[in-house]
């Protein structure tokens, strides 16, 4: 736990009847970071953030959010938190500008400016029911930011959006980060977490499996990069030199096709060797492990 932490959770437990949704969960969200909570459906992500928001009462554990207890001090906490909830909408007939007026408090930021910033100014007279998925999510972001929150919680922000709309929403989240807002992002999209998060917490069956920067998680749980190229007649000694490079774990050759496996560091070294031999294949391709690979390894690990 650090004094810099916006959210601190220790030993959180929440069950619904006999089904345990979250068990002995520890979590920290440092100020100014984007922290991702990832895992398969049913991992306990949404229950965790609902406890953090004070929407659910934990069965056990200690939670502090911006110095408040979210259960007993929800009314003091909520004005400081901007939330985008999973499976939550607005009345279909409520217009964009009316929604901003409804959720805007005296100490809030300029709603019209936020609508402009998120590209919704031309739609301010439109009813919520007529907005596209991307526009709705951007409106939820606007509403979450209206009252200058110190913490923004985004739960499945881009679920169901087309790729262009996802990119728009990602740009908006990056903008928040640049402005110093702390963001807790709940998602089951690993590419989203990898693109946006400073730190990622991987959950399964209500428990934390591992946490850290996305690159560290990839290094720990899916460290193998694969390089493929075609060399019909490789110079003598080239493949031996590649095989001796630090970090290379295997060099396979099937006819003219060559496949080299190893740590991410080998990518540059293999390239350098090929250039050194003046043998640059036209079809060289590199498969770099992603957070998705690491998450699949982690979640599939039977521990």
């Amino acid at each position: 736990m650090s004094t810099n932490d916006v959210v601190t959770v220790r030993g959180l437990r929440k069950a619904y009847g006999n089904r345990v949704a979250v068990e002995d969960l520890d979590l920290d969200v440092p100020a100014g970071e984007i922290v991702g909570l990832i895992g398969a459906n049913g991992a306990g992500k949404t229950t965790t953030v609902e406890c953090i928001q004070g929407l659910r009462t934990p069965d056990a554990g200690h939670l502090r959010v911006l110095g408040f207890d979210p259960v007993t001090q929800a009314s003091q906490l909520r004005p400081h938190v901007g939330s985008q909830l999973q499976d939550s909408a607005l009345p279909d007939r409520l217009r964009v500008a009316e929604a901003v007026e409804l959720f805007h408090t005296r100490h809030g930021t300029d709603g019209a400016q936020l609508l402009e910033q998120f590209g919704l100014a031309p739609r301010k007279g439109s009813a919520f029911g007529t907005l596209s998925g991307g526009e709705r999510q951007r409106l939820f972001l606007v509403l979450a930011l209206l009252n200058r929150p110190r913490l923004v919680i985004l739960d499945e922000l881009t679920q169901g959006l087309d790729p262009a709309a996802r990119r728009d929403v990602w740009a908006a989240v990056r903008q928040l980060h640049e402005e110093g807002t702390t963001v807790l992002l709940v998602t089951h999209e690993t590419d989203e977490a990898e693109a946006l998060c400073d730190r990622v917490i991987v959950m399964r069956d209500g428990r934390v499996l591992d946490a850290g920067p996305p690159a560290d998680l990839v290094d720990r749980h899916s460290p193998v990069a694969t390089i493929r190229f075609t060399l019909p007649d490789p110079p003598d000694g080239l493949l031996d030199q590649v095989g001796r490079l630090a970090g290379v774990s295997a060099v396979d050759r099937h006819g003219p096709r060559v496949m080299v496996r190893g740590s991410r560091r080998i990518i540059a070294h293999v390239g350098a060797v090929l250039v050194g031999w003046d043998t640059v294949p036209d079809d060289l391709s590199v498969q770099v492990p992603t957070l998705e690979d690491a998450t699949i390894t982690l979640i599939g690990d039977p521990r």
Partner: protein
Amino acid sequence: MNSPTIRLIKAEFTMMRRDPLVLTFVFAFPIVTMLIIGGAFGTTPDRAFDFTNPSHWYVASYLTVVIGAIGLVMVPVHLASYRERGVLRRFAVAGFPRWSFAIAELVVGLVTTALACGLLLAVATPVYGLPSLQNPLRVVTALVIGAVCFVALGVLLGSVLPSARSAQAVGLLLFFPSFLLGAGGPPPHVMGSAVHEVARPLPLTLLTDAVREPWLGIGTATVQLIAITALTIVVTAVAARRAVL
């Protein structure tokens, strides 16, 4: 004037104004049916109508049709729709005070009742004439208590029914028998005894009696007023807890 509760009340009024179910059921339906049935039995005082003008009997009865439509159809469907779509959760996490939504529903329900009743009387007066109020204090008391009772009943229904569709189905199932047996249908004197026994304890029947009898001077309906007051206290206490964000 920018408190969260005031903002919520304003938004709820806007939503109510744009809701075709409200416009149809709360404003149009009572007026149309009152105009039809109010003219069906003529204006000659009749024994079936406690020797009052049948048109006046129905004018004095139809204010509670408005109250029933609000409490059994408008409020439950509205609230269940909000719960189903997560709107209430959004209000809660946005920091709206715990009681703000309950207060907003009550204010919107009561003001809508006043507007719809005013419109109904404005239409009835030039057509059938306004029956003179024999005991205005009792009538107003019964109307206010009844309006609170049915808004609370609507909140309770909306908070236990799982979806807007189920709220609409259950609401209509409760509304139409209550309407036909207790407010806008045939007078109790022409009903068979079994139907009369079923109709008598219905909340809308109790409320209609508590309004109509002192209005037309055919009774005080004290028992009915006490019963509807007791029901209001119980239902409001339960509904208030259910509507907390």
